């Protein structure tokens, strides 16, 4: 079938939908059908879509993905290139750039731009971290920096799509949807995949809801966006003047009518509807409760630098911890404003000023609560920035996809470790190259999922988050 998840009016089909064999009927796997049937007895609106996952013992239960949208410069954060400093202002050697895709610097003269800040070694591990990130310096022994990332898309929108879905073609599920589909959620009161986008900083790049789309997976696995201000989730607030009690009565009455229909028709879709209304009702309480930071002590607010309701990255980091505590599977934060074609120093100060401390606070807070060990944190942008100068209002850098840095920490990740490297000018990743697909494979591995076996039939193909090109788990960065 084209879409294996389209629920039809039948028990088995619905159960297939709930537990999603993902297999067209012509290829129906019998054992799976049986397993599905047994497992789907209670129509849980937040259940996993799979019965065969996890494939192995997971190291991490959840993911917090801190997306630094716009593409932070690896050359001013984690990838120190003294040679680039030497060549500052000189033409960029052709051998690096010949035949390479270039974004805004197309047709321009290419000059080297030396690092715009200082680096030093920190912690026992001696990881190199720049002066823009004083709080990251304190985490040197907890994070694992990968300096050899590569991606395939050089413009923001497709690059985000690539980072999230493994392809630039629209309509594929995002990694958060894949993970929630594979593992379900551990909360009965909240969606399994939550997205938070922060305000503050410079004129931000747009970000499309495609980035948290469920693609061809059932839409209950799509990311639900929490708003920093106003209604925390669209339509979670009952109409004006309607009390909680009234809303409860309304849902009870709806359910009574639906139950009556169920008795008359036996339509199993009604059972699902009864359960989705219950979750909707619970969300009307649990979401505002989650978003209300009133019960956080002042020292925690101070640690993050969060002011309740301000919609900043700091508040979102704190919300991320609260979501993690409540069992949300995949939490994705976007902080935009990292697109520094010019004025890089000024804007790095802005962006790092808004994100450096809260990121440290999140990691530290999770650690002090014993949650870091089963939470995987990933930090990074959709790409890095060129070693070449761009000067839109002061020195800056263009988009760069052939080598950039990200870091991971928490469940199953080797702490205080640097992996891979770029060439002497920070252009090409040359040592232990990690493709976005490898990052996906590694993330799934830590969650107990074998990316090769994690397939869903769509348009006749066994689709994977990691696609069909080679991809591998980066074992070197694992404990």
């Amino acid at each position, binding site marked *: 079938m084209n879409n294996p998840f389209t629920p039809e009016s039948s028990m088995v089909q619905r159960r297939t939908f709930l537990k999603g064999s993902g297999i067209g009927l012509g290829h129906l796997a019998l054992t799976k059908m049986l397993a599905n049937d047994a497992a789907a007895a209670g129509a849980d609106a937040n259940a996993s879509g799979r019965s065969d996952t996890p494939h192995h013992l997971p190291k991490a239960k959840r993911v917090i993905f801190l997306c630094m949208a716009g593409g932070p410069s690896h050359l001013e954060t984690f990838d120190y290139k003294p040679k680039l400093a030497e060549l500052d202002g000189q033409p960029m050697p052709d051998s690096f750039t010949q035949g390479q895709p270039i974004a805004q610097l197309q047709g321009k003269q290419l000059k080297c731009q030396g690092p715009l800040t200082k680096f030093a070694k920190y912690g026992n591990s001696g990881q190199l971290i720049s002066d823009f990130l004083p709080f990251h310096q304190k985490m040197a022994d907890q994070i694992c920096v990968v300096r050899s990332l590569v991606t395939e898309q050089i413009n923001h929108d497709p690059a985000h799509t690539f980072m999230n879905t493994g392809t630039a073609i629209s309509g594929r599920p995002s990694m958060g949807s894949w993970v929630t589909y594979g593992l379900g959620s551990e909360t009965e009161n909240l969606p399994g995949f939550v997205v938070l986008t922060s305000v503050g900083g410079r004129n931000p790049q747009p970000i499309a809801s495609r980035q948290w789309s469920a693609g061809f997976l059932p839409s209950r696995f799509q990311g639900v966006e929490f708003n920093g201000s106003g209604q925390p989730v669209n339509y979670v607030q009952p109409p004006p003047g309607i009390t909680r009690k009234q809303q409860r009565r309304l849902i009870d009455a709806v359910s009574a009518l639906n139950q009556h229909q169920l008795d008359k028709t036996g339509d199993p879709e009604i059972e699902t509807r009864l359960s989705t209304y219950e979750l*909707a009702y619970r969300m009307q309480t649990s979401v505002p409760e989650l978003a209300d930071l009133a019960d956080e002590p002042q020292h925690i607010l101070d640690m993050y630098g969060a002011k309740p309701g301000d919609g900043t990255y700091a508040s979102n980091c704190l919300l991320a911890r609260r979501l993690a505590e409540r069992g949300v599977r995949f939490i994705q934060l976007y902080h935009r404003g990292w697109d520094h074609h010019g004025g890089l120093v000024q804007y790095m100060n802005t962006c790092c000023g808004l994100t450096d401390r809260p990121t440290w606070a999140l990691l530290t807070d999770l650690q002090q609560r014993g949650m870091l060990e089963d939470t995987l944190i990933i930090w990074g942008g959709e790409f890095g920035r060129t070693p070449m100068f761009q000067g839109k209002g002061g020195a800056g850098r263009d988009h760069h996809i052939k080598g950039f840095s990200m870091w991971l920490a928490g469940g199953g990740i080797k702490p205080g470790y640097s992996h891979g490297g770029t060439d002497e000018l920070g252009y090409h990743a040359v040592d232990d190259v990690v493709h976005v697909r490898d990052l996906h494979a590694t993330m799934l591995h830590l969650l107990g999922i074998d990316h090769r076996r994690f397939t869903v039939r769509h348009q006749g193909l066994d689709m994977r988050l990691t696609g069909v090109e080679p991809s591998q788990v980066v074992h070197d960065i694992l404990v």
Partner: protein
Amino acid sequence: MRFLLIIAVLWVLGLDFGFADEISFNRDVRPILSDKCFSCHGPDGKHREADLRLDVEKDAKESAIIPGDVELSEVILRIISTDPDSQMPPPDSGKSLTAEQIDLLKNWVREGAPYQAYWAYSKPLPQRIPATQSKWPRDPIDHFVLTAQINHGMEPAKDADPVTLIRRLAFDLTGLPPSQRQVETYVADPTRQTFARLVDEFLDSPAFGERMAIYWLDLVRYADTVGYHGDQDHNISPYRDYVIDCFNRDVPFDEFSRQQLAGDLLAGADDNDLVASGYNRLLQTSHEGGVQPKEYLAMYAADRIRNLSAVWFGATVGCAQCHDHKYDPYTIQDFYSLAAFFADVDEDQHFKVGSNALPTRRPPEIAVLTRWQRERLRTIDQKLSELRSVPAKSENAKPSESTNSKAATIARLEQEQAQLQAAKRTTMITQSTEPREMRVLPRGDWLDESGPIVTPSVPAFLGTLQTGDRRANRLDLANWLVDEQEGVGGLTARVMANRLWFLLFGRGISSSLADFGGQGEPPTHPELLDHLAIQFVQDNWSVKRMMRRLVLTHTYQQSSQASPEMISADPNNLWFARQSRYRLSAEMVRDQALTASGLFIADVGGPSVRPHQPAGYYRHLNFPRRVYSPDRGSGQYRRGVYIHWQRQFLHPMLKAMDAPSREECTAQRPRSNTPLEALVLLNDPSLVDTSIALASRLLKRPAISTPQRLREIFQIVLSRPPDETEMSVLTDFFTKEIEHYRTAPQAATMLLESADDFVDTEMVSPVELASWTGVARLLLNAHETVTRQ
């Protein structure tokens, strides 16, 4: 469960429920070979292993398959081998065959391993209509369905009750609930004659075109914004109105196809053709600074081929962008040769003149009126020239009454003329320019210019275009797609007929509506599908006639209720021994609520409308920043098909109900059932407004008792009277609501705050209105209300 297991085993064996069917290559064998073997032993020449292909009979039987001899056939020996070095599929492929599949392949080889031409690439053939003694069939279609049911040990479901049937019909043909009059008419006289009359009434209603347009707009990925990066608005709404108009006028599907793919190339192309040619501009574009034109032109080319092939071929030719298709005979050469048809589309102007304005600039564009506006304008022009040409009487004569009224008529017409001319909207069109050079891009890499240059041609295995020395163009392609003699018209008709069937039965005869390839689902009723395809062409590609034919079948009019035994015997309704039930589409949910409320405005066409949406919903959009200004007044109450379609942030109500972003072709929307959907139905201010309006509509009627009112509102929403249980739920709920509001009248005022715009709140007591609003919300949330049964 064990029963189900047995059935499934039998089914896989092609022995459904004990009725021994012969093994069919297309239905039974090919899907297994395709899924397990073709990836390395199929059409993709570059990645073929051991120089063996199993998709071509001659090649397969050279060595791998010895017809009749299971022991000597290497294919079988390999799949039953336990030696990891020779085992097929190789263990590291992650693929394996079930015991049932192995048995099936053995039996097939034993029977001589007969191949069949692939069904989707063979012209539909006239089919013998299966004979039956049964009185059940009303149309040849029913003969096919009934015969298949009998062969699988089934029988038709009973007929749907009149209310269910008329609601089903109304939603299926118009996307709207039936009017009370239509319900009463049919319930009073539920005969075939009355039904047929109502069918015609629905087909003649302008709402038919709107309903059909939604499906077509999903297929061609119509949206009001560019899709990538800044997701700016672009000018295209006249194309949407063109589509609605075509379905309403029943423009034959072949002509409809030609106009969209090549309207600009038609002899004497008029505004209508040009608007239609906007199809070629519907793809996603990026107006981000720093995009590489070359890269994006390659992306646009691929986007077009994905859409063209999904919509008209029912194929995933997009897979051949980087390599020969793995499962179907499309080569990478075919992909770029198809793309070459569109190399003349003037598309790259936006790289130079594109802007972050709203709307952005995507020339070529023209300013147009809708067809009906143009016609009206012509009539006015004509009338005016007639009126003006009548010589005025002698100047000194006293103006008579008739000249006075003539002057008034002229003034009125001139005013209307001016209004119409001001109503022109801009829309993107296709303009043919010197074709860009098109090369095969090895591995789809736009930086690699080593591939051969290609010119427009159709996929080689499907034939060639006879254009002599002339470079083939989009019109040749369009003609070939709908020409059942010289081209693949029969195949196209089959793709479309399957979709029209899907719209009325909830499942396609082949359930993969956009993939008739080897990895799609073969049709359960191949003969019926051929019959329909031929019928469609014979009916001069009339969509209305096909829809009419289908809804008049007995198959359509079955009940959708099924016993648990029926469900377990045929969980996916393969044999159409019942109708399907599923949630209404997002637009239908909205339109139904608007209709019930009386707020509904039935105008056809016009600029897109903006209903309420949560504050700040567009805050992530930039270049430029977006301020959403909801429409005031009538724009709030137009049909869902007219809602502004923001690709990156589709209206959250539409999105929660599975409307697609229209970034890619959608032939079948998912039908989810999620908490977000429940939150929309419970709390979306637009739906609250419709509830208030429905309540006030109810209270405007002459004073009647509360039970009478409860019955009436139930009837308005569900087209039937409530039963006893339902009455008691309603009564109980209403009683508590009114008690609540009597003690807290200020809560009623709060609820009704938004209502001043559309309800005369002075006329009714807020406490009553708020309480009845509660009842309206209750009914609009009921499962039955949002379900097509």
